[in-house]
């Protein structure tokens, strides 16, 4: 009830502002000549205050997040998962929470993890983050070369996918650290990615999820399965591939928060354990997202109030 009162108050204030814009020449003048730095300041506060206050909200997972979760849940311990981390530091804020959750979930299931990237030469550092923050700290029994491997970056975008669908070792003959794949135990029985049970892709653009769909899943629908997480601007472009080629998709921070909720509920809350902060990053970032989205809506509404006032005055 309290929240509804706040909402009512907010709407009354917005309506009052609308009346003021129409009636008061001073308010009208101030808003029409508003320096954009004030808007920058508002956005700064809208993001900074929830971050500092660690504002979080309950999450309700959608069908796509559940589909991603179920795909990983359906795997058996020892199954192989290709972790294609196709993003870089520019999109780390948006994608690292889901990469962390994916790594935790897969390791908790006891899966064998094959990390690689085709997006950017700085992709291996993103992989290192997942390995250092999750595998080495939470799963010390995970042994490099036996339970996980970092194959690093290869240039060639979709060209790389086209080769590794039939011959993985042709391009990846060493791991990220220069060790020959012949000396890596978990690489012995993998000739191509058709022998991998699931591809988990975290993508920030080209080459990324779309290329994995077009050049891996589409030619080999029987042997290659893919789930993905991507940036907000990419997700509308990937919906056409759901659900046949892409059974599940996490869209931006919202998708990450929903997936975190599913993973944390099963592996922490259900066992009566407290969820570590590093597995709540998606949910923690939903606070700033909410306030920022509301601010953008308010700015659009106020701007349109000004527009209609201008029309009434004949200055539009």
């Amino acid at each position, binding site marked *: 009830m309290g929240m509804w009162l706040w909402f009512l108050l907010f709407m009354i204030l917005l309506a009052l502002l609308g009346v003021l814009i129409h009636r008061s020449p001073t308010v009208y003048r101030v808003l029409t000549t508003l320096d954009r730095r004030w808007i920058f300041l508002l956005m700064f506060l809208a993001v900074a205050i929830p971050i500092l206050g660690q504002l979080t909200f309950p999450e309700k997972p959608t069908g796509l997040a559940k589909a991603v979760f179920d795909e990983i849940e359906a795997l058996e311990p020892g199954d192989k998962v290709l972790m294609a981390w196709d993003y870089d530091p520019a999109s780390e804020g948006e994608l690292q929470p889901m990469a962390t959750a994916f790594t935790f979930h897969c390791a908790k299931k006891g899966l064998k993890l094959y990390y690689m990237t085709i997006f950017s030469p700085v992709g291996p550092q993103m992989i290192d983050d997942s390995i250092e923050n999750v595998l080495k700290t939470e799963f010390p029994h995970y042994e490099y070369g036996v339970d996980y491997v970092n194959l690093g970056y290869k240039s060639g975008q979709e060209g790389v996918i086209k080769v590794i669908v039939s011959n993985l070792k042709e391009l990846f003959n060493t791991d990220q650290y220069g060790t020959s794949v012949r000396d890596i135990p978990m690489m012995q029985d993998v000739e191509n990615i058709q022998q991998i049970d699931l591809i988990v892709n975290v993508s920030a653009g080209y080459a990324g999820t779309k290329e994995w769909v077009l050049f891996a899943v589409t030619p080999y629908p029987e042997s290659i399965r893919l789930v993905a997480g991507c940036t907000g601007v990419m997700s509308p472009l990937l919906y056409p591939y759901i659900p046949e080629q892409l059974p599940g998709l996490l869209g*931006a921070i919202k998708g990450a928060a929903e997936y975190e909720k599913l993973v944390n509920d099963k592996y922490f809350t259900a066992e009566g354990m407290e969820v570590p902060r590093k597995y709540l990053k998606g949910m923690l970032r939903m606070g700033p997202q909410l306030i920022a989205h509301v601010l953008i809506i308010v700015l659009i509404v106020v701007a349109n109030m000004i527009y209609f006032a201008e029309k009434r005055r004949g200055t539009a």
Partner: protein
Amino acid sequence: MKRLIPLWLTATAGIVMIVSYFIPRTQGWGEDTSIWFDILAGIAFILGGGNILKIHLRKVSDKTKGWGYSVILLFCFLATLFVGLGKIGVHPNTQYPDHSWSGVYNEVGSPFWWLYEYAFKPLTATMFAMLAFYIASAAFRAFRAKNVEAILLLGTAFIILLGRTFAGVWLTDWIADDGPLRGLRIENLTVYIMQVFNTAGSRAIVIGIALGIASTSMKVILGVDRSYLGSGEE
């Protein structure tokens, strides 16, 4: 000859890729062509680096406006290249302890790692984060309900903006989750818009683009479109 060889190379590679997709026996040819492509993509990094050097050295030499930034760029580029390629401060791989250059270029604590962690990473993250400020400013200055289409666009934007946060759930929480009106809950409306309207529009665009790519590719393979070869003039 300068144009004929690239034309033949393009035609051969293009035809091999098409044939290898449809005829399983020729799959290996397509694989080989893809490997050549990957090698060329690697070489493109060298070309890109050379191009950066050429453009910015010319800017510095001509002292054109903003040449100071070119000096900074060249310094950062060469310094990163030096510590990365030279594997400065990197320990040898444990498999090859006698080869000092066998270690991984971005080893934790090495100068390259330091440049990445404390310069590249925060700078690129900052650039991306600044988008929020420009979007807010654009929201205030550009989105106007000028006609029916704009009103529909704004309405859809509001639903998606709210539906991607807890505000969407909270605002229509009074509608029963299993009742006949559940489709009107903002979070369900968001999913409906994305999965029906967005998917329908996107699929139409994707099919159109695919047909365009197929047609353009055929022109390139058959040598009708030669624009990728450049004008041939320096």
